[in-house]
């Protein structure tokens, strides 16, 4: 089995575009959450989200698609940054592209109804109503070379963590020589926000602004949507070192499980989450005491946070009081299909920079959410070896990843 290095990372997020901008905001606890500007949300109960600000440098064909489906542009920009950081100009035929996301965007602007107001009204238009979810992978492959396989994974909030975990396994086993893996998403459109609003999962505390998402806090009021993309380049460690690449970290373990419990709520005892963390530890060959930092799924919803905290306390029964826990959705919002990848990036950078990102709005830990939370707005020093990132999906899909500090 080969060791697997992360040699490139790219990020497009509500708190910054590009790896260093993303980290600078994360370390300072600077929130990217604010009032939705992408559409008129004045009549929606949910009016807050973490939007990507500013424009991206995209080639014309990608820009044309991104005007209809912003997440495709996010994916392309993050992929370009990650590949450039790794010094990879082209994806070779022995490579794998695996992206995670959640749901096709439906182009409401392409719908023009006549007086019949039925489906036949919109049939005669020429615009495409949907952007298929493999569009981002196709555009990346067209620009950077076609890999052996291009995969698009839709495991909800666990999708991009799964993409990274699956890519890690493919490099480790020798199946491929390089993987570009990550996630991209944006649900910040009327149907996306409206759909989540109907599910009751989002914060409606619109007056809270930047501090609307408060994972593990007693006053937490729900999740806040975010958008963006993050991509990692994975390669065999020995090869990366031999070729003089900078190794950001090693991927050491991956666990994937299903709750098999319910569609909208997690197993109330968090057994699926617990098994994902235990599986990642076993895959990494580590005892729980080896973990020095956890980036929690931490959505800010009543049920999820309590269930996750309890699962962490069970897995790390002897040490949880001394494992600093970050919850970066507090500043990025929930990137859904891209959440696992952006949070994997937060873990990588925590290792590279030697700092834990804070959970800045956590004032009073909720009963049942007791952990060693990183509070305040200043990142804490971190010199540990291993970090664990959790991603738990709507529908009961769970993924945990473990990264190790690089000593190269």
């Amino acid at each position, binding site marked *: 089995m080969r060791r697997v290095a992360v040699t490139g990372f790219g990020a497009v997020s509500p708190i910054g575009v590009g790896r260093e901008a993303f980290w600078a905001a994360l370390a300072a606890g600077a929130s990217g959450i604010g009032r939705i500007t992408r559409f*008129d949300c004045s009549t929606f109960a949910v009016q807050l989200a973490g939007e990507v600000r500013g424009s991206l440098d995209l080639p014309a064909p990608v820009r044309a698609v991104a005007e209809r489906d912003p997440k495709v542009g996010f994916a392309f920009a993050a992929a370009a940054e990650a590949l450039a950081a790794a010094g990879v100009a082209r994806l070779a*035929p022995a490579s794998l592209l695996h992206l995670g996301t959640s749901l096709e965007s439906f182009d409401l602007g392409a719908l023009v109804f006549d007086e019949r107001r039925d489906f*036949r009204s919109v049939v005669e238009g020429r615009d495409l109503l*949907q952007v298929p*979810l*493999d569009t981002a992978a196709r555009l990346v492959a067209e620009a950077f070379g076609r890999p052996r396989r*291009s995969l698009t994974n*839709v495991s909800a909030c666990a999708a991009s963590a799964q993409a990274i975990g699956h890519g890690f396994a493919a490099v480790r086993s020798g199946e491929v020589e390089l993987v570009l893996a990550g996630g991209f998403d944006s649900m910040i459109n009327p149907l996306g926000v409206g759909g989540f609003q109907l599910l009751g999962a989002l914060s409606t505390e619109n007056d809270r602004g930047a501090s609307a998402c408060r994972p593990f806090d007693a006053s937490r009021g729900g999740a806040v949507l975010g958008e963006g993309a993050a991509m990692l380049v994975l390669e065999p460690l020995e090869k990366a070192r031999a070729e003089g690449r900078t190794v950001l970290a090693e991927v050491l373990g991956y666990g994937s499980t299903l709750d098999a419990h319910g569609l909208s709520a997690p197993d109330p005892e968090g057994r699926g989450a617990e098994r994902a963390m235990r599986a990642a530890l076993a895959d990494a060959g580590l005892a729980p005491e080896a973990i020095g930092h956890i980036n929690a799924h931490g959505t800010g919803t009543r049920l999820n946070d309590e269930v996750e905290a309890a699962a962490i306390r069970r897995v790390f029964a002897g040490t949880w009081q001394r494992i600093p826990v970050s919850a970066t959705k507090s500043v990025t919002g929930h990137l859904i299909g891209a959440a696992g990848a952006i949070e994997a990036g937060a873990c990588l950078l925590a290792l590279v920079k030697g700092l834990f990102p804070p959970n800045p709005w956590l004032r009073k830990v909720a009963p049942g959410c007791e952990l060693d939370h990183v509070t305040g707005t200043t990142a804490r020093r971190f010199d540990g070896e291993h970090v664990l990132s959790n991603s738990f999906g709507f*529908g009961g899909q769970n993924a945990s990843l473990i990264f190790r500090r690089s000593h190269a």
Partner: protein
Amino acid sequence: MPPAAEVVVTGIGMVTPLGATAAESAAAWVAGTSARRAPVAELAGTSLAHLQAAVRAPLDAAARLGSRKMLKFMSESAVLGCVAAHEAAEAAGVRGRFNPGRVGLYSGIGMAGASLEDALPVITASLGASGRVESRIMGERGLAAANPLMSFKILPNMPACLVSIIEGLRGPNLIFTPWEGQAGAALLEGWKAVASGEVDCAVCGAADNPAHPAILVHLARSGRLPPGESVAAAAAYLVLERADTAGRDNRKVWAQLTSVGLEACDDEPADPLAGRMGRSFAAAPAVLLALACCLSVGAPPVSVVGVDRQRFSAEVRSRS
């Protein structure tokens, strides 16, 4: 990587235009039956009225699944996928034979589409005077017209999550979308996971409903449905396990999977099922593999080139 263990198929489920079960679908294929096609009612009177979809075989999903309650959460793809997966899992005796945490679920799913019954009330209640959707109106009254369960029917991971809940599967999982190649990856990953020992059993397959009017319009407008071709809603799932566990438990073995492959290619899309069944896109690799495992002779070749320009192929050694 070469497989470390012999992988066999001990359960097959299918819902196709040729039949509502694996046995019916396989028998109809051998008999040379072609699916009956019909125009799509929602396209009547439009410039796309010529498009046709295969007529689904009669299916009592509530009876097959033993529950009516779950159906309200299901899209058509989810119904087909859950019924096919249940048929396969029951045939293989998955529940009770394996530690649920050692059973993986690897699924493919086609493009997402809410039923028009769910989507149109929201959209038409959100129209402004110009006939276009206005978000302000959607917030005011469009969302109030929504089926609160609509999100469950749209999200593309839901069919697989429903399978996991119905069958009690708790192991590793992946869900790929939306074309033949990605769905073929689900079969490949299931095969690899069993062969490598990552799981003891894999439930793998795919479902697609390209006959959904909005998806059909997309396929036609984007050129992904060549002129003269029809579409078919279908699903197929297979249960894979090691030959030694099947032998230990004295299970019927349908076939051995000696190789499964997925590679990028430059070939034009090609689906051996298209002529007799219609294009079922994401479901096609699973239906092809299921037919090949059911039939010792007369099965179509297990090779499909998707619109995503990836070739899925498999070699099957029949045991039936």
